[in-house]
């Protein structure tokens, strides 16, 4: 089974986001970068599917700055077989990114293309289903579990207040969310092996972004709160405030 996993380099989810002087981008200094957490779930799923099948080829693909090779190497160390960096400047436009990916991966004839349900920086949640449409493949989004058997794909998809059980057929695109399996850490052996695995870099032209960022701002400051009191004795006052002042009870 041939599986492609698209992974994105994003700021660590615990890092403090500082807006740069231009007012429309993020100051990259001092930020630690990671594989977007949802993409890690996708990669973990790909490695498990390959292990279960007993054979296969897992290609990790990134779109973005040359520095993304760091995350692709991590993907190789986790167990992917090959890596491809489509190097160019991506912006906040999922369709532009999906077009770059579609052009690069269509010749790979993958059985399955996996992505994280969303990138932990732009939070757009759109590249997966857009890529599927461009490739003419069926797509299941936000899968918490995924099974592949005899060319049939079954996924459990989280919806409000429930779970959908969704079916489709290979070749397919699936976006993953957190499920049963935590992503593995690269082993020392894996890190050593990754140095010898193929990592191809291909320069690309990203279509001009049609989502124009006018301004980046910090979240609105919350007005300073107050400590109502200590212990159970403070509860009646808390309930009174929620009822009379905040009017939420």
């Amino acid at each position: 089974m041939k599986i492609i996993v698209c992974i994105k380099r994003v700021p660590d989810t615990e890092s403090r986001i500082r807006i740069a002087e231009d007012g429309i981008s993020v100051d990259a200094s001092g930020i630690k970068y990671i594989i977007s957490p949802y993409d890690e779930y996708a990669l973990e799923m790909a490695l498990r599917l390959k292990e279960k099948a007993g054979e296969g080829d897992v290609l990790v693909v990134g779109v973005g700055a040359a520095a993304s090779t760091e995350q692709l190497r991590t993907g190789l160390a986790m167990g992917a077989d090959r890596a491809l960096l489509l190097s160019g400047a991506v912006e906040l436009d999922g369709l532009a990114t999906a077009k770059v990916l579609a052009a690069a991966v269509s010749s790979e004839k993958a059985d399955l293309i996996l992505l994280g349900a969303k990138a932990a920086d732009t939070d757009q949640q759109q590249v997966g289903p857009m890529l599927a449409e461009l490739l003419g493949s069926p797509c299941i989004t936000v899968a918490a579990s995924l099974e592949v058997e005899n060319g049939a794909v079954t996924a459990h998809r989280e919806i409000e207040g429930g779970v959908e059980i969704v079916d489709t057929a290979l070749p397919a695109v699936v976006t993953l969310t957190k499920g049963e399996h935590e992503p593995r850490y690269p082993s020392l052996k894996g890190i050593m092996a990754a140095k010898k695995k193929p990592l191809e870099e291909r320069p690309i032209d990203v279509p001009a972004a049609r989502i124009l960022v006018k301004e980046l701002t910090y979240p609105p400051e919350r007005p300073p709160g107050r400590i109502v009191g200590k212990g159970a004795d403070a509860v009646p006052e808390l309930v009174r405030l929620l009822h009379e002042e905040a009017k939420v009870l």
Partner: protein
Amino acid sequence: MKLLAVAEQRDGTLRKVSFEVVSAARAIATELGGTVEAALVGGPGTASLAADLARHGAAVVHVAEHDALSLYSDGYASIISELVRGDDWFAVFFPASAMGKDLAPRVAAKLDLPLATDATALAAENGELVITRPVYAGRAFAKVQLNAETRLVSLRPNVFRATEKAVSLQTNALAVGEPETWRVRVREVKAASGDRLDVGEAPIVISGGRGMKGPENWHLLETLRDAIGPSAALGASRAVVDAGWRPHSEQVGQTGKTVSPQLYIAVAISGAMQHLAGMRSASTIVAINKDADAPIFKVADYGLVGDVADVLPRLSEEIRRLRGD
């Protein structure tokens, strides 16, 4: 100028977010001098839901109904794309729900249009639509414009207010297309929580953290939820979900759900950055924690320092008293 609001039904009932999307579209239409129409896809009988959309200001309700559309499938994207392609729309608004987040990108790709996801505010400036949406899980907000003839935007549930503005009902039946060509099918929907609201949509959310000490203490939170009533849902911190105490569907924060309830009660949650990202847009935040220095108190409107075993039973009792039970 015409704007389209894509509504959502489940099991033959309109979801609340549908009214939010129609109302938000109407607010923009009023500023720009346009009209709002709505689209709704579902199983047999869906057309009977159109009146409720007209009551919120949809001048025309486009309806596609068919047995094969009772549950969501990729057919929805084909139907909506054809409707959008067939006319000049200034903007199309989708709910940023589980359905809308699957549907909108497919429509965008089919029509080669850019899409802004999960908007939390809309404005009309100099005749152009300005969209505010969170990035970095709410650690920053981006104001964006879409450089396209038709602007596709999905709206975060629970943020835009649903308001009524009755117009006379006019419906238009949409072509369903060829169900046999659809390739992704929902075979079954399993309700995780019976009739309870999802944590992502409930007006009141009570979340428990690691300070609850174990899943066996969750009955304290369940009692509080029941005291508040059906508008309340339970959430959990990432630590609690990682420990296997609660399912991922309840997780609030960066790798879980982003919530914007009227009231968020954080119980025994310290307030890591990735949790705050998921709940800081709540209207009112209450924090209950025994550590007076916990970072959660920095974002809370009302803080109570104390042990959950003492505080929660009393809180449930006082709320019942308030409700007159």
